[in-house]
């Protein structure tokens, strides 16, 4: 087990290098960022050249990459175009997004798995159809519509919540954005759990457990659920990374200044330093989530062993 974890940690090195290189190249492919810095006016050539020099854009790409990686290993993630250190941006953005992700994941786990279990145990029942319908609405209406609608209803019409999130972004203000962010994943988790439960409830170990005379909730939670969770856990594990980096729309609607916001700004302004820095950290988050998910497999299904 320990050996397995060490091996996985070592594997992160090539992935880390591969991902950063890929992102670095992608941002570079987008072209010259300097043209966008001077508004609707052309930068005068001298200033443009000076800016390129300062951001290191006048060097060949491979050299830029090496310099960048060298700096990263000393903890210097560079400077954004507005003069802020990227590490400073990260230290404000990541905690906010982390809280938002936690809220979303809690919604996914609590609501998604509950609905999945209920519908899986009651296939064809009105409850099942009702949830299916709900799932459909969630999937077919894009997040920006759900978000805007809920914001308008809860924030303005009924005045239940603040329509936007304050700078501090405490947990209670993030409930609605978290729910909106979780909606599509919720649909996945519900359907995945439902299918898994429906499939496993006829398996021998469940019959055995029922035959043993175990109480029903014990059968469901200890036997059925535990074995049905592998695809769900896989999904949620991957979703954590996805939610952290993919909350661009939700963060925009609710004015949350998190990772999605910074990443989007970085991409729009073609700011290599910001984009590569944030994505690098996201890659690390992905890798750790995957490791945890793989270890969870072994917990959920005792037959799986890692050596």
């Amino acid at each position, binding site marked *: 087990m320990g050996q397995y974890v060490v091996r996985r940690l070592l594997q992160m090195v090539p992935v880390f290098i591969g991902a950063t290189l890929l992102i670095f190249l992608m941002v570079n492919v987008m072209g010259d960022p300097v043209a966008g810095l001077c508004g609707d006016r052309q930068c005068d050539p001298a200033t443009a050249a000076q800016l390129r020099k300062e951001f290191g854009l006048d060097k060949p790409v491979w050299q830029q990459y090496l310099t960048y990686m060298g700096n990263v290993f000393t903890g210097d993630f560079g400077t954004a175009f507005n*003069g*802020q250190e990227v590490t400073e941006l990260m230290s404000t953005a990541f905690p906010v997004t982390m809280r938002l992700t936690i809220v979303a994941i809690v919604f996914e786990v609590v609501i998604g798995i509950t609905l999945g279990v209920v519908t899986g145990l009651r296939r064809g029942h009105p409850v099942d159809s009702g949830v299916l319908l709900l799932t459909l609405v969630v999937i077919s209406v894009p997040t920006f519509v759900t978000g805007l609608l809920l914001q308008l209803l809860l924030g303005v019409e009924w005045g239940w919540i603040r329509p936007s999130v304050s700078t501090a972004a405490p947990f209670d203000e993030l409930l609605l954005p978290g729910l909106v962010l979780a909606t599509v994943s919720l649909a996945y988790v519900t359907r995945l759990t439902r299918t898994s439960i429906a499939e496993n409830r006829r398996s021998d170990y469940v019959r055995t457990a029922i035959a043993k005379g175990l109480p029903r909730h014990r059968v469901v939670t200890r036997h059925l659920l535990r074995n049905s969770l592998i695809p769900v856990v896989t999904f949620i594990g991957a979703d954590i990374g996805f939610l952290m980096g993919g909350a661009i729309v939700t963060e925009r609607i609710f004015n949350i200044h998190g990772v999605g916001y910074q990443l989007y700004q970085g991409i729009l302004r073609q700011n290599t330093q910001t984009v590569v820095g944030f994505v690098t950290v996201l890659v690390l988050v992905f890798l750790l989530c995957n490791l945890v998910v793989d270890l969870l497999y072994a917990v959920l299904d005792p037959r799986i062993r890692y050596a």
Partner: protein
Amino acid sequence: MRGATHAGRAACAVVVALAATACGGGGGSTADGAAVFSSSWTDPQNPLEPANTNEVQGGKVLSMIFRGLKQYDPKTGEAKDMLAERIETPDSQNYTVTLKKGWTFSDGEKVTARSFVDAWNYGASLRNNQKNAYFFSYIQGYDKVHPAKGEQSAETMSGLKVVDDRTFTVRLTQKFSSFPDTLGYNAFVPLPRAFFDDHAGWLAKPVGNGPYAVDAYTKGSEMRLTRWGAYPGEDAARNDGVTLKVYTDNNTAYTDLMAGNLDLVDDVPAQQLGNVRGDLGDRYLNTPAGIIQTLAFPHYDKDWNKPGSAKVRKGLSRAIDREQITRTIFQGTRTPATDWTSPVLGAQGGYKKGLCGQWCEYDAAAAKKLIKEGGGLPGGQVKITYNADTGSHKLWVDAVCNSINNALDDDRACVGNPIGTFADFRSKSTTQKLSGPFRAGWQMDYPLPQNFLQPLYYTNASSNDGKWSNQEFDKLVDRANAETDVAKAVETFQRAEEVVRDNMAAIPLWYQNGSAGWSERLSNVALNPFSVPVYDQIKVG
């Protein structure tokens, strides 16, 4: 059944949680009772140095914490003396500036002639990467501190000389009679020593000489400004302070305004314009601003630079139903353009209503005929290029295309061509990569006709992305700049503008208005010609 009960419990928990937020959230932004209000803002793209700020959002802050030699009147746009006691010139080329007494920065330092000269030299110097450096390019010695190529060979411009504490002289490289009127622009403000001595500290909390002082600045989220009690000017703030809150999306700002979390929105999203009257009643303002939207053409492309091209462009212009688009899409917050400047200049200042004449009037039959006479659309289709990341450009480009298609009876005569990012759009348009018309917006730097014409249409000018070049136009602009008589200068500029019209160098679309909505707590809200709220005049409560 057990499962259902669990689900029920979970749902309850969610409802309770939401209700709890309801209790915790909401409420206005003024708990302390002071006459402080909040206003929407966008994170400035560049560090907040005066000569490095080239967009409205940074300019907003500068206009609150700085005062320059001149100040544009919020209503008329006229350049009035602010710190300048007088600006004199015998020949429109050598200027002597005398400062008023009694001005200080909010940290107590006196504003002297040095404060200006140092600031301007800093702004012009290539080393400092100031994006508005070219504003100083009329001053003698600019080419030494900011050469087009290579290293700079001087630290300061030879055309600037400090005479005494309150006097300095400026020598220009050419005659420029309206030079004093340009001095109200943010790039020309004075800077305190703190700016040079502790630059990082200054950027974290800028210090200036305006009616407000920065109290706290959290980059990327908000800036708190408070009234500067000892402000020596006449336009002291009538409120206790302003909190600028950063919004990523102006829709959210508008929603916050409706929910009572925000007091002032100075950029009402186009999609909400239809609801404004119902949502805000008369707490809404829609006034002309010095912004014009045009369609520029790639004159470097031989398809658009043929004998009949001007006719095709005129035909396209006549195929655009400006009246209907501004009414339906923009709910009257844009006005159909009839010249290439802006109504905020005023009739005496150079705006001439109807200068475009019939060429800007919608007439489908005439449009069809003109395009046919001009040899038809190059390739049978025009693609209007725009950037999709900012503004609601897709909305009006689609409407313009539909209008052209309807006029020409061809569903595919015109299509929009979105480009993902502003940077990419700019880099394509400034390097002549576009082969069809593209969106061009111009927000004036100072209210002079020169500013609407020279940067956009003069041969190789900084914003002449279509590379239009016309000797007659260039000659007329040069002559107008040297003209000392204002009326004559304006007339000459208008003759130059007629050259633009006759060639239809760019199709004028509409003048953009500034719009603002505010909460019940505020009164006396106004926008200046740059579409920035006149913060110091706003009253709270």
